[in-house]
């Protein structure tokens, strides 16, 4: 699931994690807002990738543009000192179905 983090203090190598959208309505406004709210708590750059298209994980409009419905596979990426923690929390949102359903 996770690519290896580069060692030491140099975290220029982003971490990735694959997630699947399992909540029924997909990433609509509310989940997107929850994702962005969580993502902005971390200083790492967050990216969300769907079929080759990457958007900024701290941008609601970006996330909405992906139109990631139920069953969509996404790859989250994080680059920064708190990347690992960010990915853990963000991935948990997907597992928790964004508190929906």
């Amino acid at each position, binding site marked *: 699931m996770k690519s290896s983090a580069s060692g030491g203090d140099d975290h220029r190598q982003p971490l990735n994690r694959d997630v699947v959208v399992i909540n029924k*309505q*997909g*990433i*609509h*406004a*509310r989940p*997107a*807002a929850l994702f*962005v*709210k969580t993502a902005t708590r971390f200083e790492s750059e967050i990216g969300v990738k769907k079929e080759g298209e990457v958007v900024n994980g701290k941008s*609601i409009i970006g996330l*909405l543009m992906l*139109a*990631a*419905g*139920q*069953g969509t596979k996404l790859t989250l990426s994080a680059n920064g000192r708190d990347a690992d923690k960010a990915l853990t929390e963000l991935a948990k949102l997907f597992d928790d179905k964004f508190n929906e359903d």
Partner: protein
Amino acid sequence: MESKSSAVKAITAEEFYTAHGRQLGLKLEAGAAGLRRKIREATVNRPGLALAGFFRYFAWARVQVLGSAEKAYLKSLSSDERRRRIQEFFKRRVPCVIFSRNILPSREFMEEADAFHIPLFRSPLLTGRLINSATLMLDMDFAPKKTEHGTMVDILGIGVLIKGESGVGKSECALALLERGYSLVSDDVTRVYVLDGRDLMATSPEETRYLMEVRGLGLIDVCRVFGVGAIRSEKRVDLVVTLQDAQKMENIERVGMDEEFQEILGIAVPHVGIPVSPGRDLARLVEVAALDQKLKTMGYNTAKEFNDRLIERMRSEAKG
């Protein structure tokens, strides 16, 4: 800041006379000793039936308005009978009596008003007009009202009450809105009251009307600086905007799908909180918030409409 609210239970005939005497053209003809009498209902009554001797369901607590019909009826009676009817009427302790159309009350009416201490007024207005105006005025006198710490502006017909802690930039924001051609209702201290039990209306205290205090500049007379087009005496509150220090805000709205309300005097008014941080053009944000509110009142919620379309699209893609 005073922010007690109170629904008025009663006003005295004197308060009514002082507040509206000029507009209604009231002249006190008799019964001055009874000016402390209390009006307890926010409307008027035509006492025709009462004068005819029918006192069941007599709305004695209201302002009693007499017009040509009552005058003609009383005139049809003998002097003694007339006096007796007037006495019966006054025994019910009505708060005050107004004759419309400048009708001069009969001698009996004047004497009994003095005897019973019931204020007797005369107004030049036609009966219908008098009733309408007096009812509106009473409605306002009795309306729940309070003072809000906030600046009230009118943005393209949308009344926006800008709230926030002192020094957060309410007045500067209003100033920038005035420069864009919108108008000011009141700065910093806004009086609100409920009209018709439905609309929350805002106006400014008489003393500080159209005055603005801007840090570093002092008091500004908006009417003189920006012209009469920049002021408005009264406006319905359609939106409450709270300017908040971005650092202290816990929950910053990012989508705007959940409409939030703030209750003022029992009326739920749409509310948005705008985070303030250096370099944000607050006036612009408040302006857009007002326009977006206009869309919502027209039945269009941008966030919701977009989201419904998005969910529909994702659903059909998932199927296909």
